[in-house]
């Protein structure tokens, strides 16, 4: 299922902008409809066991619910029981006892009411789905800003947005084995196409790149396959296996290893000149106004977990440790230095981060605090104008893949 959300607030926020959740998180927050339905059902079953009797109630929480939620649930159950004629009183020897345990399993919460009345012991259960957690607020002001523009349950390799000259917006989502296209007129979705891309024999960790063209045109690189799309009222896509091994990025193209998840090390320049270095996952070079005529400065994120700065020589001028596999260049208005974004050195089982580095001479100096992601950063590509970057990550809490735009704000 595709979940679409475009954040309306483009101000300096560093955490996810996502739809509001129906989650009870504090004593002041009303509980969700699902929770209320479950409590209604439990109250009805309790009433069937001890009709119209005053009962004592104790609540035990062995789930991940917080104290605020537990208090809310207790109050809501008391209210529901009152509707069925059961008044809650202090424990006494004569009164039936209701023991509510807030339990949890791998599907969600499981609320279990045990009713003891004399020698009788009855039980009722209600299952409740766990709502995705609300995003946390940014703890500290950061220069690096993230705006989530798309979330979905299926993997995203790359994404692009284009504004049509005649009005309307196109969204492209490159996924393993297909390209999805959504057309919007204002906020109304008018077209959704899902166009297959045959990338047989591809990588276990497929990578892809989208290069927007003119007025809805698009090029999609998936492994060694190149697909070219033209937009009229829908997208026509033509693919050619083997034609897309050289991925265009900035002033050069990089040769991709189709059955792997990295580039071979060959960088091809428009002049026909090419350079062979060690294989790498991603690369960054200064934006045009900072580049020398030969664009000889490159940082390559190698397969060994180290990033290397090349300045035109065969040997690296510097080696940077603890950088992740995803790096790119972002141009900010803050200063004139070359700024590189780098993901963290973790793997896909843990949260990740993106750190801005100022690169000058042979040093890379962290600038500001890292922007933390609730899961691995899977792709990081520069926008055409170098003023923003596209990042695809996976939220380990929700399991959703998130497409985001990163920009740098000056913290004057």
């Amino acid at each position, binding site marked *: 299922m595709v979940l679409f959300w475009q954040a309306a607030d483009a101000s300096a926020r560093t955490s996810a902008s996502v739809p509001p959740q129906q989650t009870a998180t504090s004593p002041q927050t009303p509980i969700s409809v699902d929770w209320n339905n479950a409590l209604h059902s439990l109250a009805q079953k309790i009433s069937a066991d001890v009709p119209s009797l005053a009962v004592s109630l104790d609540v035990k929480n062995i789930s991940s619910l917080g104290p605020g939620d537990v208090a809310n649930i207790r109050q809501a159950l008391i209210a529901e029981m009152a509707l069925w004629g059961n008044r809650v009183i202090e424990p006494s020897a004569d009164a039936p006892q209701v023991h509510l345990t807030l339990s949890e399993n791998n599907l969600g919460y499981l609320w279990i009411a045990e009713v003891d009345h004399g020698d009788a012991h009855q039980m009722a259960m209600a299952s409740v789905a766990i709502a995705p957690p609300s995003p946390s607020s940014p703890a500290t002001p950061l220069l690096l800003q993230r705006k989530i523009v798309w979330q979905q349950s299926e993997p995203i390799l790359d994404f692009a947005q284009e504004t049509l000259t005649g009005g309307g917006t196109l969204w492209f989502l490159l996924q393993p084995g297909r390209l999805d296209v959504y057309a919007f007129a204002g906020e109304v979705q008018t077209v959704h196409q899902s166009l297959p891309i045959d990338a047989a024999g591809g990588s276990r960790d497929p990578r892809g790149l989208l290069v927007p063209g003119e007025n809805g045109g698009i090029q999609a690189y998936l492994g060694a396959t190149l697909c070219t799309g033209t937009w009229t009222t829908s997208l026509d896509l033509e693919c050619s296996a083997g034609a897309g091994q050289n991925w265009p990025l900035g002033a050069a193209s990089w040769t991709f290893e189709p059955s792997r998840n990295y580039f071979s090390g060959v960088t091809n320049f428009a002049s026909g000149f090419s350079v062979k270095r060690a294989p790498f996952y991603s690369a960054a070079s200064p934006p045009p106004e900072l580049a020398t005529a030969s664009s000889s400065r490159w940082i390559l994120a190698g*397969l060994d977990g180290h990033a290397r700065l090349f300045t035109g020589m065969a040997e690296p001028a510097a080696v940077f440790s603890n950088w992740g596999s995803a790096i790119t260049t972002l141009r900010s208005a803050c200063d004139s230095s070359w700024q590189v974004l780098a993901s963290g050195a973790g793997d896909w089982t843990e949260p990740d981060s993106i750190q801005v580095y100022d690169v000058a001479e042979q040093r890379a100096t962290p600038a500001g605090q890292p922007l933390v992601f609730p899961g691995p950063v899977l792709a990081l590509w520069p926008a055409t104008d170098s003023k923003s970057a596209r990042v695809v990550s996976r939220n380990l809490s929700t399991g959703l893949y998130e497409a985001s735009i990163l920009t740098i704000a000056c913290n004057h």
Partner: protein
Amino acid sequence: MEIQAIVISLDPAVADASPQEAAAKAEVDALIYPTRNADGSFAGTPGSGAFRVDSFDPGKRLVLAANNAAPGGRPFVDSIEILMGRAAQDRLVDLELGKTDFAEIPCEESRKAGAAGVRLSVSQPDELLALVFLAARPAAQDAHVREALADSIDRAAIVNFILQKTGEPAGGLLPQWAGGTAFLFSTAADPAAAKELWLQIPGSPRLVLGYDSGDPLQQSVAERIVVNAREAGMSWTAQALNATAGAQASADVDARLMRLRMNSESARGALAGFLQAISPVASIDASALADSAGAETVYNREREIVASFQVIPLVHLPQVYGLSAQVRDWKAPGPGESWPLADVWLEESAP
């Protein structure tokens, strides 16, 4: 690029058709076959999965090579070298010396392995160790015998001393994380009640508890249960069974220990798998629950089985794996899943 090879130390050279051998074979099959059926069998051509067999020295060494055309993409590592015939102690030493990248570690050894600096991956507790009464034996017909033994067992001692606190006492069949109802089953021992029940049984029968001769954990637990039973006045002895001979290995055995792996993350599916595995041995209702069965229905069936004392849950065990420092993206497999070795990669240790 430099070849990246995972080295695995695998189970001891146990007899064919033993549970350990079957489990190890299934893990290898999962790496070389492209498809796994719902019943756990494999389909397709061997070698068309993530890996193909490169070389095989039976009982000693198996080398798998990455399949470039693997469904879902080529594995990240180029090869897997599997060292066979490595006993638990050997596997631990292999890990400590950096001779292997991956090995299974018995639960009862995990604390020791952690103390030795081995990097551990511990799954959710997804395996049930249970005592099952054999349907054909007189003890299975006498509810007092079964309940008396159940009351006498000190599960906490099994977890604390034998398992070194790796695992959870089990009063029900399903672990808390899967069913959400495990807390409703008592795990406490009641030796006084056991004594009282035993006194009501005429003739004080002498009973035998069987365990898998190739499983040190089962042996330790069986011996502990016998001690508990004797403390409650019962006459139980432990007897090793040939694992390959099946449930009816000895006509003298009244009950036996069984290890039951969850084959599904769902409570309904896991319970169905347990009952299917137990039903050839014990006198229980193994009929399937409806697909729509909710938590309450699953709990009621579980309660019915446990209350019959034909099956006595003992402990829920996690799967423990030892990993070298270079292994990345390892995620402990869930119930019914195989080792995700096609998805891991090895970090190079030096620039």
